[in-house]
């Protein structure tokens, strides 16, 4: 479903033909919905190549990658190995001065939504590159663009925008109904994203 098709459905929901809401109102709200759904569910996954920086421990992925939301994995192209995720506590158990340890990058520790520490840090400037797999923010939609959301969950944007339009008219009861549908579908989509990738395998979530 393209953005314009979605806008037409929403106009039917709220019985508006450009009278109460301009096309720009609807399109802006669709973009808002798309931004929020993509960020909260992590439905768009991308990869990029970054260089290891000599003597740098903390990488600001929020600045290095323009649409970075959260990290999935890092691949060291020099050693041909994945970096393992680890916690700060475990790094402190390795050594209490792990931040200045030089060597082959083997572990990464996500500090918050943008900073990631890499242990160990290379001491040479041309060590190599890393492939960063991450969840990305939403792109900007145009009229004929299709949101990158699974088709079975395509109505999630419709729910959000309809609720948004109704709340602007202070129709709280009606807006709440659509909002509740949106939140419920959001949870389902998030579960779908977490489980869909390799259904034949068992995922074990371990927090260190």
């Amino acid at each position, binding site marked *: 479903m393209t953005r314009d098709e979605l806008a037409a459905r929403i106009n039917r929901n709220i019985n508006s033909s450009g009278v109460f809401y301009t096309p720009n109102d609807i399109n802006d709200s669709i973009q*808002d919905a798309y*931004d*929020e759904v*993509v*960020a*909260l569910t992590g439905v768009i996954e991308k990869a990029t190549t970054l260089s290891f*920086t000599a*003597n*740098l*421990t*903390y*990488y*600001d992925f*929020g600045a290095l990658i323009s649409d970075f*939301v*959260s*990290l999935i994995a890092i691949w060291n192209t020099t050693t041909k190995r994945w970096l*393992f*995720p*680890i*916690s*700060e506590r475990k790094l*402190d158990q390795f050594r*209490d*001065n792990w*931040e*200045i340890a030089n060597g082959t990058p083997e572990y990464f*520790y*996500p*500090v*918050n*939504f*943008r*900073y990631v520490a890499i242990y160990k*840090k290379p001491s040479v400037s041309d060590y190599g590159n890393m492939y960063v797999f991450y969840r990305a*923010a*939403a792109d900007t939609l145009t009229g004929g663009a299709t949101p990158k959301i699974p088709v079975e969950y395509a109505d999630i944007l419709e729910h959000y925008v309809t609720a948004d339009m109704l*709340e602007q008219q*202070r129709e*709280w*009861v009606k*807006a*709440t109904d659509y*909002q509740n549908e949106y*939140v419920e579908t*959001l949870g389902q989509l998030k579960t779908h994203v977490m489980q869909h990738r*390799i259904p*034949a*395998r*068992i*995922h*074990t*979530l*371990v*927090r*260190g």
Partner: protein
Amino acid sequence: MIFSNEYLQSLFDDAEAEITNRLNCIYYRWAEEINENQSIYILDTLVRGVKRVTWKGKLLIPISFQELCILNPAFVILQEVGGTGGSGYFDPTYFDPAYFDTTTDVSGFTGNLGAVGTPLYYCLYPNGYRNICFYPTPGEDIPLTGGEDPYGAAISTHCIISCWRNTDTTYTLPEYMERRTKKAYALSKAFAIEGKGQDLNASRYYKAKFDYLIEYFKSINEGVFVAKQYQLTGGQYPVRSRLAAPVLPASFTEI
């Protein structure tokens, strides 16, 4: 206009404070300028909570003030400079070991109060909300020349303090959640005030929206560390029971 732009802007500012109050998400590090024989340093008001302190790369152990007093009972006495016998002005930031030498009797104590050397511990000093105290007292100057990189090269040469901080024009909430979350908070407050424009249904609606957005962002911010260990199985969930072991029949001992 029911709500002025200035009022709404103040609500947006409140929203930022509320979001950073609910979850620590803005990470910040800096190299602190160290002065020889100065043990107490005042942190900036932007600091919400100290996360980690390192001295030339080595982790300093956080302790409570009570534990600091056990390590060195002399720290019970708040530092003073100038005068003798307790007179003089109070300056909590400067520790002068010469003031407490063997020839000067201060409040009944004699001898040097504190060890001077490479800090091993730090604590939040009780004479100020954002005062941090190193123990032992640093015995060297580490000046700042400007351009220190607290995320890389400066870690091995400086004292680096990591913290959770408040937002400002440079350190902001992530773009994908900032605007809508602040809007929900501001509207929930605006519709709740007494007078023209009050709508408690609207206030409750936007408060619910704000709460769920915060919870989702919390799951993004705090759930960044997910150690997935993939394993190949037959596609069935493992049965969680004890390991397989031979079991003798119940009637084994019966004749």
